[in-house]
């Protein structure tokens, strides 16, 4: 079956963007349906990819390879494995929702939809590319549509926020580029010809000090993207100024490029450095968890609150990744998907209320539950999913991460556990201020509950949140082989022994 699905997944949205731009200006009503149809088509492809993905095979599947610049060793090399398949699915899932959520945007609607589709293509490209330069190109290219998303259709301080976002990430990726080039130089010395092919670079043996520097170079770019604790100040500004669809995609998928980067590149290419620096990064992550949650509690602006909650949740993901245990890693990967859903939904909801009242200030609201019961119901449901209530998807990831990383970083994980408590505090306190009590302000009384369109995008997300919470087996099944492979490589290349390996538990169960 040689239908190279991965290329289709990337270039279909990009082509779609071109189509949307080409639509005649006289027929604006065509824009949204066509954009939506294209993104749903991509979703279908992604669905097919997930279903057809063979969970037994831990390596890369659906691999495609074509030379771009052979003497430099750059080639169009795509592949997907347990770690990236669900991120691609998540991307494909969030974009149709983002499109439907931004139907109300009148200002230059065609360009908006085209930018979204372009962003989707580039994002999928990032998760699928196995060639470092290709990865870097997609990593950089998607900054542009994101910049315009925030810069053109954002809130009041949109230009400043967009610029800050762009420059901050670009600074990071500068280091990334240096690292990539250094790697290819190393490849040139050891293999004779420079190559950016990820699979070949895996067998490179890099001196310990070089690994530290490279880990740092790659690490800074991804840490800014995650965002890890000290590098996070661009996120709240970017989120508050981004339009709803922008926020959903930014929180839902863009942030995962950082954690995906750590998992795909840092852990595999620089094993010794990873083992040494795991403690430090786990510490940064835990600081992020507590810091993000604490700051979220006192945020007056609803969107900033959700933005800081993302900092906290992604702190969990990084803690899971650098726990270097099978539970921690699979927890981290599944939590990337879960966070995308819950925070995506939260941003949708905040967007809906913003469309009605045009303010994100919590004190402007009050007693909405009486006026908008269905909206309050969805908000409470998503808030609890985000706070990691068992039975919903947030819990599965956090439970795996917390229990998985205790064995490696006991003290840090205990502190991280308090993050779960703080999450409940800021979400419920916000819910209390916005929804309970009497709707005293006049404008609040006149609000209408959410309509069919809005429910139609919330229901699939809620369904997925419940499904992933109650029955995460199909997802975990596909993630585990890829995670085990990462750990096997780590254990081969270093004298590191990852406790509680899943296969140990399996045989413990057997001989019980």
């Amino acid at each position, binding site marked *: 079956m040689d239908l190279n699905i991965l290329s289709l997944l990337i270039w279909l949205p990009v082509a779609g963007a071109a189509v949307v731009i080409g639509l005649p200006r006289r027929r604006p009503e065509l824009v949204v349906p066509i954009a939506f149809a294209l993104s749903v088509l991509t979703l279908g492809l992604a669905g097919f990819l997930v279903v057809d993905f063979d969970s037994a095979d831990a390596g890369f599947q659906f691999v495609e390879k074509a030379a771009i610049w052979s003497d430099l060793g750059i080639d169009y090399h795509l592949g997907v494995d347990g770690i990236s398949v669900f991120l691609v699915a998540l991307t494909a899932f969030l974009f149709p929702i983002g499109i439907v959520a931004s139907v109300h945007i009148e200002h230059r609607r065609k360009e908006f939809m085209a930018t979204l589709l372009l962003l989707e293509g580039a994002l999928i490209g990032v998760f699928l590319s196995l060639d470092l330069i290709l990865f870097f190109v997609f990593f950089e290219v998607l900054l542009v549509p994101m910049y315009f998303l925030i810069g053109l259709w954002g809130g009041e301080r949109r230009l400043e926020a967009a610029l800050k976002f762009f420059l901050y990430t670009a600074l990071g990726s500068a280091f990334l580029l240096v690292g990539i080039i250094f790697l290819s130089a190393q490849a040139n010395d050891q293999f004779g010809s420079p190559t950016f092919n990820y699979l070949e670079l895996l067998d490179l043996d890099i001196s310990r000090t070089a690994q530290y520097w490279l880990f740092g170079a790659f690490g800074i770019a991804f840490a800014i993207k995650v965002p890890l604790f000290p590098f996070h100040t661009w996120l709240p500004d970017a989120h508050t100024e981004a339009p709803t669809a922008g926020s959903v995609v930014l929180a839902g998928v863009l942030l995962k490029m950082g954690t995906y980067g750590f998992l795909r590149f840092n852990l595999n290419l620089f094993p010794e450095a990873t083992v040494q620096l795991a403690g430090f990064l786990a510490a940064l992550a835990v600081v992020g968890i507590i810091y993000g949650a604490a700051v979220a509690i006192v945020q007056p602006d609803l969107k900033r609150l959700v933005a800081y909650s993302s900092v906290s949740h992604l702190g969990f993901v990084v803690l899971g990744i650098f726990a270097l245990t099978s539970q921690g890693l699979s927890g981290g990967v599944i939590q990337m998907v879960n966070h995308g859903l819950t925070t995506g939904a939260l941003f949708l909801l905040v967007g809906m209320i913003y469309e009605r009242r045009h303010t994100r200030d919590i004190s402007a609201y009050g007693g909405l539950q009486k006026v908008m019961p269905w909206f309050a119901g969805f908000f409470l449901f998503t808030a609890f999913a985000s706070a990691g209530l068992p039975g919903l998807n947030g819990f599965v990831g956090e439970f795996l991460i917390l229990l998985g990383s205790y064995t490696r970083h006991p003290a840090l994980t205990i502190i991280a556990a308090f993050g779960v*408590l703080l999450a409940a505090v800021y979400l419920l306190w916000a819910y209390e201020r916005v929804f309970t009590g009497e709707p005293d302000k006049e404008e609040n009384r006149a609000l209408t509950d959410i309509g069919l369109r809005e429910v139609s995008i919330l229901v699939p997300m809620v369904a997925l949140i419940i499904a992933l919470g109650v029955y995460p087996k199909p997802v975990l099944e596909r993630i585990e082989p890829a995670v085990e492979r990462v750990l096997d490589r780590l254990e081969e290349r270093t004298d590191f022994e990852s406790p509680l390996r899943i296969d140990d538990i399996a045989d413990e169960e057997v001989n019980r």
Partner: protein
Amino acid sequence: MVDYIWIVIALPLAGAVFLHFFGSRLREPLPGVIATSTIGLGFIYALIATADFFAGTGEAETVHLFDWIAPLGANAELLWDPLSAIMTLTVTGVGALIHLYSIGYMHGDARYGRFFTYLNFFAASMLILVLADNFGLLFVGWELVGLSSYLLISFWFHKPSAAAAGKKAFVVNRIGDVGFLIGLMLILAEFSTLTYGTVLEEPARVITTGMATAITLMLVLGAAGKSAQIPLYFWLPDAMEGPTPVSALIHAATMVTAGVYMVARTAALFELASFSAAAVATIGAFTALFAASIALKQRDIKRVLAYSTISQLGYMFLAVGTGAYVAGIFHLFTHAFFKALLFLGSGSVIHAMGGEQDIAKMGGLRKIMPVTHFTMAVGWLAIIGIPPLAGFWSKDEILAIAFGEGGWFTFLWVIGLITALLTAVYMTRWMYLTFWGEARWEDGVHPHESPAVMTAPLLALAVGSAGLGLLNTPWPFKPALEHFLEPSFEAIKMAHIPSGSTPWILAAVSILTAAAGAWFAYRKYQGADAFDIAPVMPRRTGVWRWVGNAYYVDDIIGNLIVLPGKLVAAWTAFVLDSEIIDGSVRAVGGGVRRIGGWLRPIQTGFTRNYAAVTFAGVVGLLLWFVTRGVG
């Protein structure tokens, strides 16, 4: 085989889902009827399953439903053994009666359907908690019960106090849950799985007493959060904001006992860690005394019962702490009945008095509400421990065993006895001020007896409170409950009632204290005029004022923990984050701009300057050639 047991959970869960979508469309009593029937059916199934269990091999059975989080050994598996049986029966039995009662009580409420959705959802979550076969699923039930208590406490969400109480309950529970989570981390680290089978089967082989103590202490923190023991008890009195059936079901009969159940379930670990067991007992005893003292001066009819519940839970913790697991479960069982009875009774009083909850404005309801008064009398006698009612048997057994264990536990027995005295006093005060003496109603209030649908459950519970004591009476009949729970605790060395004549003496002593307390309170409030609900202790001492305000615990926590917490968070957010970190980022931008500023004057605008610079470049190039020595 009992593999149909999952129906017990599925029924209320289905009820909840159904009512969530269609509840608001159905006419008034229908949602209530549906909800009551689902939990009633659950009760019947539980009975059948219990019968099956004893007919069968008598071995604990695990029912595997589906894989949940396999890497942690936390799958959807249910455990059916006597301990979970007794708990399921309590939850579904008392639950059904309370559902029935709520049909009447919630009459006319705007969100009638939604109430029963949450009630059924609570029942399903509690059953998950009780039937779980691994700590993962137990934790799921644990937090879902917390969620339903949040939803039900803030049911009348338009009341800001109710919303705040709901949030307070959930957050405090979550503090306990963090401890619980850390305990689970330790368990996974040691046993590399969460299933009860691996963890509780001779844990001594895997972990040291030190680790067992650590694990159990963490679990105790979780239990203290859920069962409202010191230091995490202060959410329960505020939880009275919720409708009374909620208080009865969640904050008296079932949810708060989750902590006791968990300690009983992990008895194997507590056996290894004697220090933790002693800690549990001590926490229990002191919480009992502490809460009982507060109850003395509460004026809200439900808050008295709330503190009483905390106190009775203290007794249960004392029991499981001393190793008397059966006595603890027995008291849990009886307490569920008589405390639910008292709560529902007070509910019907509130219902009759048009929402009035202050006992200072009641009195003389004896004649007007005969059925309620009779059932309340039964509940009153049961709780203060007058034989042959249930309360006496279970409380006395706990005290007897505690006395029997000797040493530190005997001291705890003394505390238990004093608490029994205080219980008798505040409960008699509660009875007297509500039902006897002159009527002190405000004008416009004309109480009437509650409808049959409310009094029927009261009668049923009254029968339970009176009769259930015989289930585990040590003397005349064989202790049936002990035999029933045997399979669950066979591997555990249980503490028993001291043999010989001591139990008789102890029984006499506790009856005497109960009677003395009751007589003292009766004499005290009978003489005093209606409004001088004078303090039991002399007015002058500050202690009385402290007791009145529940030792100012709420205010202490308010400004010792919550306020500084907010300040720190505010400082982090608006100073550290937006000034220092974000500031440094902006500073980088500013710095670049400044450096740019320095370089700007180089562009003078004069062509000749630029020509000069170019020529300087040429000369420089030549210089480089010269220095390298051409040729």
